[in-house]
């Protein structure tokens, strides 16, 4: 089958191109496979990279589930010893809930306010270029700069050390993302359809509800997934804005398995799998949307 590639014209060329793609795909998946491989090892072999002779076990997940504050609770003397486990009721489900809650709240809140702003910017060119840039400025600022003072500002407002504090911190990137992407999507949406509805006697509000909302669902979906993933993955804000263990999110939990002297590889691998899996599932849908968009652009189905 001949390809439509503008640069690859020969069979040999295809072979070279595909080889490069395969090599890079291997480079891409190897760290994932290595984490899964490590998580399936018995705990005492986790630090032995060459170990291949073992029965796969879910021990690492049990360790993750049981290990409370691994950083201070764990002791280790050589690769043979097991981790000193502090069993006091696993908070992992609470960390999962925290992560889901702050990411979900940040996504919904930013989409809600962002949609109105984006519509106004796209349709009426409100504020022009300066407003567009102003909405993007916060993502240029290093999060560490926000973190330093946010802890005290939120504390003074009585919302310090809470999930609200984290969600508000996430607004510094969620609103810019929401406004930016939704503006692009609104601009791409043919204005004529909306105007036709208005000529037919609909008010602008009804035209938006009847014409734009149903057609923009995929756009909202994609933007929402992107913001959710970014929020779910965020580490610095929950890490620096809260000091209450019950407010930890999954990325913060993952970081507790490593200290300057210790690397609790087994439970860490399990925690990484639990943290990353939901996101990859969402990313798959986002990827599908992006690729479909690209196909539509080129007229390929």
């Amino acid at each position, binding site marked *: 089958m001949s*390809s*439509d*590639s*503008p640069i*690859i014209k020969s069979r040999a060329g295809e072979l070279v*191109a595909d080889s490069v*793609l395969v090599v890079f*795909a291997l480079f*891409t998946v190897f*760290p*994932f496979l*290595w*984490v899964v491989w490590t998580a399936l090892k018995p705990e005492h072999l986790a630090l032995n*990279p060459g170990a291949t002779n073992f029965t796969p076990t879910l021990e690492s997940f049990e360790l993750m589930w049981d290990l409370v504050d691994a950083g201070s609770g764990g002791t280790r003397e050589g*690769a043979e010893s097991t981790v000193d486990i502090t069993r006091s009721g696993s908070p992992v489900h609470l960390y999962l809930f925290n992560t889901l809650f702050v990411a979900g709240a940040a996504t919904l809140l930013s989409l*809600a*306010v962002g949609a*109105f*702003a984006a519509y*106004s*910017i796209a349709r009426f060119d*409100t*504020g022009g270029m300066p407003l567009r840039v102003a*909405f993007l400025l*916060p993502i*240029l*600022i*290093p*999060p*560490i*700069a*926000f973190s*330093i*003072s946010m802890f*005290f500002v939120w504390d003074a407002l009585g919302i310090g050390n809470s999930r609200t504090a984290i969600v508000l911190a996430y*607004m*510094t990137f969620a609103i*810019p993302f929401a*406004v930016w992407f939704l*503006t692009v999507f609104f*601009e791409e949406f043919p204005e004529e359809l909306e105007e036709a509805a208005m000529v037919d006697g609909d008010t602008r509000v009804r035209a938006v509800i009847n014409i734009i909302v149903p057609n923009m669902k995929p756009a909202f979906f994609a933007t929402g997934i992107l913001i959710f993933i970014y929020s779910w*993955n965020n*580490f*610095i804000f929950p890490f*620096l804005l809260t000091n209450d263990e019950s407010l930890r999110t999954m*990325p*913060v939990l*993952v970081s507790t398995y*490593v200290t300057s002297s210790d690397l609790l590889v087994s439970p*860490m691998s399990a925690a*990484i799998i639990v943290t*990353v899996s939901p*996101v990859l599932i969402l*990313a798959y849908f986002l*990827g599908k949307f992006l*690729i479909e968009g*690209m*196909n539509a652009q*080129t007229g*390929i189905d």
Partner: protein
Amino acid sequence: MATDPGGSRERASRTLGDLQEVVPLRWTLVAPAALLLAFVTLLPILYLGYLSATDFNVLRGMTEGVVGVQNYTSAVLESNEFHNALGNTAVFIAVVVTVQTVLGFLLALLLWGRPKRRKYVLPVLLTPMFVSWVAVGLMFRFMFEDGIGIVPLLLSQVGVNISWFSDPTYALVALMIADIWEWTPFMLILFLAGLESLPEEPHEAARVDGASRLEVIKDVTLPMMFPVIAVAVFIRIVEASKVFPKVLAMTEGGPGSATETGSWIVYKIGFRFNDLGVAASQAVSLTLMVLGLLYVFYWSGGLQKDVF
């Protein structure tokens, strides 16, 4: 839907009309997002600015209180530690963004116009950018760590013995590899989207004129892709300049100060040494540098309206 008991819609639209005379609808729509964003950014920024002019320490509180620009002279302008971190950050940015751009463009060229390959390979290639940054750091830390990592083990099989995290250069290289793994996909997706939206004709014309494939890419594709590349590079420079979770997870700035970056120094001084006033002055400086970058980029014409 058809009935309108009590003419509520009429009343509602009249109120809306009154309101529109004071604040036009378009500004009312922008207001919630703008006000919320201003609330979460301006208060912390103002307080950060104030802190940067004080000698506030988390444990000691204020000793002399406001000390003016002292932090900026001692911890920014005259601090070798901070200069070293800025240097490390610059080297890190230069290497990772260059490699990501070249690799991303190469991969995009290989997938260009090949929907089948795109369908199966692209989802795999994109995965790293969706992994939590701190998790990426930890994954690479335990793959590269001496004695327990797979990378030193494999390299020792071919006679290469590198102790990645005790060597100043290799520690930085390990950080770079992790970042390249994570963010090349970002370049790939932007470049591929850009390539797929390029018009056919100029390429056809160049080929008819007898240009080789390499010449077509160099003389036709690259110039047309320039706006996309410029924006992608800018985004990556800004993002790479913030590098922190990876440093925390992989090297904690070490060995010595070999992998200390700007954000890492702010964290170390502010949250480990508790000198928030000093850290604030460095955070403000970092922010100003990034904004300076935007200014340069904006006025050099890299940022155009159709980017949005």
